[in-house]
């Protein structure tokens, strides 16, 4: 066993802040790294130590392998926590850490490399006897071979890039006529995006649910499943709201699901925290999708119902210690939901919004947890993704958790940038959401941005406030000695009024 005393967090934003919190509780020194625009980001302010790693663009800082690793070596870090994104699933980075004598808090490099290849991951799941979406075992080499597979699988089907991910390199094919062009397009895109033109075929599920299993595995080979998370509410493959347990599961399905996830993890000799993703078809049958070899954004919902600290478990595992709970994971208690708060405007096609957080008030009260990477006065930079933070709630059952989330969302104030708070308020009040009828197409089927606009009552309040503001503006001008009177819109209006009259 090798104790970990100094951890460098190779990440930023809310996840870096979240990791720092656990390190502090464990009495481990937290070391932040930051790009130039992140000098006063929350993770830098929170950390025990912080070091610059380059300019704003990720490639030149958070994704600069040599720079991050050299910093870790120079400042005497004995471990690196990668968070999610950036280097979290990068086998070369994990290997470089190992070569430099630094513990990578995550799976082994070979596991990252193996599971990063979707076909290899599918092969492992198949070998473990886990249900798979019907499809090709090996990527078809020619269009004719693809046609043969299509005949067995049936339409509609999905063409997927072997090296793809995050919704990229996928195409739905509805009939035989569409296969030829989709085949060459998907291969071309895959080659351009991932440098790999292998494409495989899967049956297409029209209205899938997305449910995933949280796995922890220690160095002794012990593997635990800490329940499932339902992440079906997505927009363009970006998850927006997650919950545990899944409303789609009964106890028997849940047990089979957990057992399947553990089998996949054991098959590949998994180490540390990971997530086995499945999709559910309309009948509730589940099929293996892929393994995410990292701590997930939505891990807090699992923490809320199990009472575990997954980052602390990750550190223990990386030290070579056994899982804190031995062979029996704690039984989950109650229900948890997480709303991802992103700087995007739901009224304007979810356009990203950057700028200064002018005002913020976090929700408080029973069962509420905020994982946020921002504060009042913080400038949201242009270089990174739009996730500002996560609002997580816990309640005794789904309905009480849902009401708690609705209440907390109403309390939450973020001003200065557009956020999706109004979207979440709409979502958690929607009858289909209330009923637990979810699918990855929920948003396209139910969301209409005009529903978020002000109603008549809101318009009345806005009218009052706008008039009040205009009046105060005018009074400011009238005040004697007011220095900026010359810039007032009212003076300006007076001046402009005279000009056209003179010409008349």
């Amino acid at each position, binding site marked *: 066993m090798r104790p970990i005393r100094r951890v460098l967090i190779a990440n930023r934003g809310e996840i870096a802040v979240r990791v720092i919190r656990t390190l502090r509780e464990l009495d481990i020194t937290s070391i932040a790294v930051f790009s130039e625009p992140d000098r006063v980001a929350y993770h830098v302010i929170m950390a025990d130590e912080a070091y610059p790693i380059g300019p704003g663009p990720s490639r030149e800082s958070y994704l600069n392998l040599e720079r991050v690793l050299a910093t870790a070596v120079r400042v005497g870090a004995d471990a690196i926590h990668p968070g999610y994104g950036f280097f979290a699933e990068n086998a070369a980075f994990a290997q470089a850490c190992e070569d430099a004598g630094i513990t990578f808090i995550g799976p082994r490099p070979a596991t990252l490399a193996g599971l990063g290849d979707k076909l290899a991951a599918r092969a492992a799941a198949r070998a473990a006897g886990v249900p798979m979406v019907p499809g090709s075992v090996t990527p078809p080499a020619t269009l004719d071979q693809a046609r043969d597979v299509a005949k067995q699988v049936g339409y509609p089907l999905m063409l997927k890039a072997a090296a793809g991910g995050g919704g990229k390199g996928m195409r739905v094919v509805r009939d035989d006529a569409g296969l030829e062009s989709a085949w060459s397009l998907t291969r071309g895109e895959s080659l351009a995006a991932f440098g790999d033109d292998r494409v495989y075929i899967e049956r297409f599920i029209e209205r899938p649910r997305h449910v995933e299993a949280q796995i922890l595995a220690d160095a002794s080979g012990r593997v635990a499943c800490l329940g499932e998370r339902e992440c079906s509410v997505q927009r363009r493959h970006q998850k927006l709201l997650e919950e545990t347990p899944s409303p789609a599961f009964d106890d028997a399905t849940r047990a089979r699901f957990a057992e399947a996830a553990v089998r996949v993890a054991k098959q590949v000799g998994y180490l540390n925290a990971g997530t086995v993703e499945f999709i559910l078809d309309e009948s509730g049958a589940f099929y293996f999708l892929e393994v995410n070899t990292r701590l997930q954004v939505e891990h807090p919902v699992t923490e809320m119902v199990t009472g575990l600290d997954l980052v602390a478990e990750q550190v223990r595992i990386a030290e070579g210690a056994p899982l804190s709970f031995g062979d029996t994971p704690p039984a989950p208690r109650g229900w948890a939901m997480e709303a991802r708060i992103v*700087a995007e405007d739901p*009224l304007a096609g979810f*356009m*990203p*919004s*950057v*700028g200064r957080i*002018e*005002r913020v008030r976090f929700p408080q009260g029973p069962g509420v947890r905020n994982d946020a990477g921002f504060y009042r006065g913080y400038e949201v930079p*242009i*270089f*990174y*993704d*739009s996730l500002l933070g996560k609002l997580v709630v816990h309640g005794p059952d789904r309905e009480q958790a849902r009401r708690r989330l609705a209440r907390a*969302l109403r309390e*939450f*104030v973020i*001003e200065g940038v*557009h*956020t999706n*708070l*109004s979207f979440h*308020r709409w979502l958690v009040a929607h009858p289909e959401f209330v009923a637990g009828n979810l699918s990855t197409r929920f948003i396209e089927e139910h969301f209409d941005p005009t529903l*978020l*606009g*002000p109603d008549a009552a*809101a*318009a*009345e*309040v*806005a*009218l*009052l*406030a*706008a*008039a*009040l*503001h*205009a*009046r*105060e503006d*005018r009074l400011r001008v009238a005040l004697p000695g007011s220095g900026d009177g010359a810039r007032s*819109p*009212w003076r300006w*209006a*007076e001046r*402009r*009024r005279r000009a*056209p009259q003179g010409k008349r």
Partner: protein
Amino acid sequence: MRFWVTLEGREAEVELHAEAGRLWLDVEGRRLEADFRRLPDGEVYSLLVNGRSHEVRVSPAGEHLEVTYGGVTFPVEARHPLEKALQAVQRARGKPAGETIVAPMPGLVVALRVRPGETVRPGQAVAVVEAMKMQNELVAREGGVVSDVLVEERATVAAGQPLLKIRPEQP
């Protein structure tokens, strides 16, 4: 005090009285009444309307105001009657003076699709600005001839920064 307020595409004339934290507003034959206080943290009002508590932020955004209420931000215009009259005169006289394409948000110019002298159709994409790993296509509203390109590709731009100018096509 009299104002013209434009909200959600509707324009209304309002008459406003305020005294010692109370506000009366006459609009389209109705009277609205509220108790108001300005909160210490910025341009935020607490309004009590018939006992119902509302928290509203009003901030200037260019020539307009932005009202944030219930987590939704939307534009509002509040103008003095004289200013409104002037605006009408200007609109009546106004000839299309061309358009300036500005960055809708801070970001990186990833593509400029046109060059000076090029003719642009209304609705044609002229530039792409990337922020937070998402790309946003900017289109010309009216079209014309590109008179100036003010930035280069890969440039970092601020919100509202002019990127290129388009003048009306000569008849």
